[in-house]
C-alpha cells in the first residue's frame, strides 16, 4: 500500500537518474540515429543523406578491417583472460594464509593507467631488445616483432591485456569460496580426480559468474581503444602496416568523428557497433540457457 507521499518521495530521489537517462543516454541514442542519416561536420548544418552513410560503410575497407581486428582481438582476449583468471583464482583459493599477499600482487596491475601500461609495454614488447623476447630467448625461442610486424601486433596486445586479469580472478575467487565443500567431499568419495572435480563440481558451481564475465568482458573488448591508440596512433601517424593491424573499431569511430569531423558517418558506425554488440549479447544469453547453472547466485 504505497502512499502517495511515499511515491512522490521515491520519484524525487530517482529523478536525477531519470534526467541523466534522458539527457545522456536515450536522447543521445536517438540523436545519433538521426545523425547517421545525415552529413554533419559541426560547421555547416546537418544535411539529410538518406542511407548513404550505411551504403558507404559496406564499401569502406577500413571499417571492415577495423571490425575484423576487433573481433579477432575479442576472440583471443576474452577466452584467454577467463582461463587465466580461473587458474589464478584456483591458486589463490589454495594459498592459505598467503592468499591476501598474492591477491594484492595480482590485482595491482589493474590499477595502472592504461596509457602508462601501453607506454611500458611498447618497450617490454620491443622486438630487438624487449624484456619479453629476452625471456623467450632463455627457452630457446626467437620472439617476434610484437610492435612492428602486422601479424604479431594483435597477439602482442592480447598478451599485454592478460597482465590485468587480476580483477576477474578476484571475482572468481569470491565465487569459488561459495561452492559448498560437501560437494568436493562427495566427489572425492566417488574417487573423482582433481581434474574431474574441477569439471563436475567447480565449474558448474561458478558457471553463473563465468557467464557474467563472458558477457561483460566481451562488451568491453569490442570497445577496446586506449592501449592500442596509445601505442600506434596519435600525433605521429603510425606506418600504414602497423596502423591497419591495430585499427580497432572504436579507434576508427574516434578518428572519423573527431579527426575528420564526419559526425554523420561516425554515428552510423556507432549504431552498427551497438547492433553488433546487442546481437552478440543476445546470442550469449541464449546459449547460456543450456550451459549455465544458476545455483551460485550471491
Amino acid at each position, binding site marked *: 500500500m504505497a502512499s502517495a507521499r511515499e511515491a512522490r518521495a521515491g520519484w524525487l*530521489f530517482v529523478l536525477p537518474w531519470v534526467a541523466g*537517462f534522458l539527457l545522456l543516454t536515450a536522447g*543521445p541514442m536517438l540523436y545519433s540515429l538521426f545523425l547517421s542519416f545525415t552529413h554533419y561536420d559541426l560547421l555547416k548544418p546537418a544535411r539529410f543523406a538518406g542511407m548513404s552513410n550505411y551504403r558507404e560503410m559496406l564499401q569502406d575497407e577500413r571499417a571492415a578491417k577495423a571490425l575484423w581486428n576487433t573481433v579477432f582481438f575479442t576472440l583471443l582476449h576474452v577466452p584467454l583472460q577467463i582461463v587465466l583468471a580461473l587458474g589464478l583464482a584456483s591458486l589463490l583459493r589454495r594459498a592459505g594464509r598467503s592468499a591476501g599477499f598474492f591477491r594484492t600482487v595480482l590485482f595491482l596491475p589493474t590499477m595502472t593507467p592504461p596509457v602508462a601500461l601501453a607506454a611500458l609495454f611498447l618497450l617490454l614488447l620491443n622486438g630487438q631488445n624487449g624484456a619479453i623476447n629476452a625471456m623467450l630467448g632463455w627457452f630457446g625461442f626467437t620472439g617476434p616483432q610484437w610492435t612492428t610486424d602486422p601479424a604479431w601486433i594483435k597477439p602482442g596486445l592480447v598478451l599485454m591485456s592478460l597482465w590485468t586479469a587480476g580483477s576477474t580472478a578476484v571475482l572468481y575467487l569470491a565465487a569459488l569460496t561459495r561452492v559448498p565443500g560437501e560437494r568436493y567431499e562427495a566427489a572425492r568419495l566417488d574417487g573423482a580426480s582433481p581434474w574431474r572435480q574441477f569439471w563436475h563440481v567447480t565449474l558448474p558451481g561458478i558457471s553463473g559468474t563465468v557467464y557474467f564475465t563472458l558477457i561483460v568482458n566481451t562488451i568491453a573488448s569490442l570497445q577496446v581503444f586506449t592501449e592500442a591508440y596509445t601505442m600506434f596512433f*596519435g600525433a605521429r601517424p603510425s606506418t600504414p602496416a602497423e596502423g591497419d593491424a591495430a585499427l580497432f573499431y572504436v579507434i576508427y569511430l574516434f578518428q572519423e568523428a573527431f579527426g575528420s569531423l564526419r559526425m554523420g558517418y561516425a554515428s552510423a558506425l556507432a549504431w552498427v557497433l551497438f547492433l553488433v554488440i546487442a546481437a552478440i549479447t543476445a546470442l550469449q544469453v541464449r546459449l547460456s540457457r543450456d550451459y549455465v547453472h544458476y545455483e551460485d547466485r550471491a
Partner: protein
Amino acid sequence: MTRRAPVLFALVAVGVLFAYPFWWLLSASLKDRSHVFDNALLPSPVNPQNYTEVWRAVPLLAWVGNSVAVGVAAAVAATVSSAVVAFGFARFRFRGRTVLFGLVLATMMLPAAVTMVPVYLEWHAVGLATTQVPLWAGNLFGSAFYVFLLRQFFLGLPAEVFDAARVDGAGPWRQFTSIALPLARPGLIVVFVFELKAAWTDLIRPLIYLREPELYTLPRGLKAVLDRFGQGGEAQWELVMAASVVATVPMILLFLVAQRYFVRGVVTQRVEE
C-alpha cells in the same frame, strides 16, 4: 601441508611475472638514455634527473593538479548522486519502480562508445566542449553500476531504524542524510575510490574534450609525452618512463590504502540478471 608447496611455488612464479613490469618501469625511469633498454634489474648509473628533466619539459605539476581536481569532482558527483538515486529505489515503493530499475541495469550493458559522438555534440551546443566540465559533470546524474551497488547496501539496512525515525517526524531527506548515509559509509567509499580510479586513468574523454595542454589530465599529458619523447619522437624513453611512474604511483597508493573497498566493489560487480 606438503600439498601446499606446488601451489605456493606456482603463485610465486606468477607473482614475479606480474610484479616484474612494475619493477622494470621503476628501474627504467632511473636509467640514463643509453641504458633504458638494457633490461638490467637495477639502474647503473642511477639517474634521478629524469624526473626533474620531464618536470621542466612539460607542465607535469599542472597535469597532476588537473587529474586530482577532475578525479575528486567525478568521484564526489558520482557518490552523492548515485546514493540519492539508490536510496529512492531501495526505500520507497512507487509505481514503475521495477521497470525503471530494470532500465538502470540495462544501461550497464550499453556500450559507452555508442553515445560518444552525440554527448560531445551536446557539450558543444552548450559551449563547454573544450573545458574539463564534460569529464565529471555527467556523473551528477548517478551511474548505473553505483546505483545498483549502493541499493544493495541500503537494502541491507534494518527497516526498523527508518520506521523509528519516521515516528520521530523525520522526513525522507532526513532519513537519507542522518540514517542511511552514515550506515552505508563502506558502500560510499567503494563508489568514491572506484570512480576516482576511473576518472584518473581515463584517456578517451580527455582526448575528445581537452585542447589546451594546460588543461590536460595525466593520461592525456602522458600520451603527449609519449608522442614527443617516445615513438619516433626524440627517443628519450627514460623521460616517458618517469612520467609513467608519476601517473601510476598515486593509483598504487590508493589501492594499498583502500584495498578492501576495491575488492568489495569487484566482488559486488556481478549483477543478478
